[in-house]
């Protein structure tokens, strides 16, 4: 019972947020959420630290239980309007549309949390841009290739979608400004 409650503990959420902040500030840096996932979903742990009734959420592939969605407290919204979107990385996004923000309010661009990613495996991505000293190599597996195509479609700085990849108890972030490729 205590382990299951871990994502919802305020102390744990502080640690999780600070860890995510570090990963967000340093794209490609793999961070460990440690025991705060309670052995459960790292994506839920990240969302629990960020969501409440002041934001909107879409569980695209129904990965959370009704109870977990209710406990997040975020208002349900369609994917194209939601501030936070949770999706299964192995699924084809097709022509999924997410909020990219506007030039007057680029912060309205969505945060996409992709679960079931194999961090450290798969094809190598070379990342560069703000937060990265030169470049960094990152291996991500289990991601349907169409997610990368979709990211290219969404991100046109300062508009775009910010990505959080989750795997086991680990997470890695790709804000919209991160460039992929040599």
């Amino acid at each position, binding site marked *: 019972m205590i382990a299951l409650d871990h994502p919802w503990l305020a102390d744990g959420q502080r640690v999780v947020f600070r860890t995510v902040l570090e990963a967000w500030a340093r794209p490609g840096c793999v961070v460990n959420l440690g025991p705060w996932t309670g052995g459960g979903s790292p994506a839920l742990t990240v969302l629990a630290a960020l969501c409440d009734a002041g934001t909107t959420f879409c569980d695209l592939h129904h990965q959370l239980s009704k109870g977990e969605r209710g406990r997040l407290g975020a208002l349900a919204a369609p994917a194209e309007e939601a501030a936070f979107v949770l999706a299964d990385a192995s699924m084809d996004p097709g022509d999924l549309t997410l909020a990219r923000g506007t030039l007057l309010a680029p*912060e309205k661009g969505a945060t996409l949390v992709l679960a079931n990613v194999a961090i450290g495996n798969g094809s190598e991505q070379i990342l560069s841009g703000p937060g990265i*000293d030169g470049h960094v190599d990152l291996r991500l597996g289990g991601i349907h290739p169409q997610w990368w195509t979709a990211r290219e479609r969404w991100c046109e700085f300062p508009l775009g979608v910010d990505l959080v990849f989750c795997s086991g108890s680990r997470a890695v972030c790709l804000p919209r400004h991160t460039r992929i490729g040599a």
Partner: protein
Amino acid sequence: MNQGFGFLDDLAVREIRRGLLKALAIPGYQVPYASREMPVARGFGTGGLQISLAIALPRDRLKVIDQGADDSVNAVALRRFIEASCPGLETTTRTVEATLIQTRHRIPEQPLSPGQVMVYQVPYPDPLQIVEPSESRRRRCHAHGDYARLWVRLYEDMVRFNEVAISNRYPARVAGRYVIDPSPIPRFDVLKLHQSPVAHLFGAGREKKLYAVPPYTDVEPLAFSDVPFAVEPFRDATGARRTCARCGAADTYLDELPQVGAASRWQCNDLDRCAERLGYPGDSDHDEHHAGP
């Protein structure tokens, strides 16, 4: 409502968390947020205070500086408040020991290192405020990257004074896009933001804005190609670089202390750096305590 660790309630903390992430994702962009009432008056560092309270952990070591000093009234009051609100959090006056540095007016002289986070108390977040009073029009200017009037202001300074007459809050372009007001740090410190190894988080409580400069990000002060940006020279009448009267440093930002009936005294503004050079790290008042004025 949870007013446990960090004073702020859960809704406020999560809103600041979301705002900070978006601020880092859009370097230099001012993210609006609902700045909360704090037990200090707006204008006394509530923006930085809210960021520190939202991100602090019990394992953090906090340093608060105001005008380079750890012992100024504002720095002491904010440090004590954060200390009381965050049980377990330690405080320090040493830059190299701190994991969380809340500042007003200065970036420490010692090089920062990954693992540290800089938090700024910002009075005026918008560099366009000096040329455009309407916030909605300023937002449109930022949206379209239109900083023409700011350039005109710099040009007018050159025509009138033969130099850009902005001593602090010098506008700087972040990651080639947004121009920020880097808070009232002197020009001497603006270059420290460029490709810095740490994240710089800016909070303007009164103006309800958050913005950020991620680590390893280009930050370029606005300057004309034929008039390069220059920091405060600290040169005497002979052209020699002034040195600190306490530690002798010739590479730090100096305060001028006027003396009655004598020439001004110049000394390091960053007291921790000065104390370190004097061999009394962590005791910036050492010579006052032990050797007299």
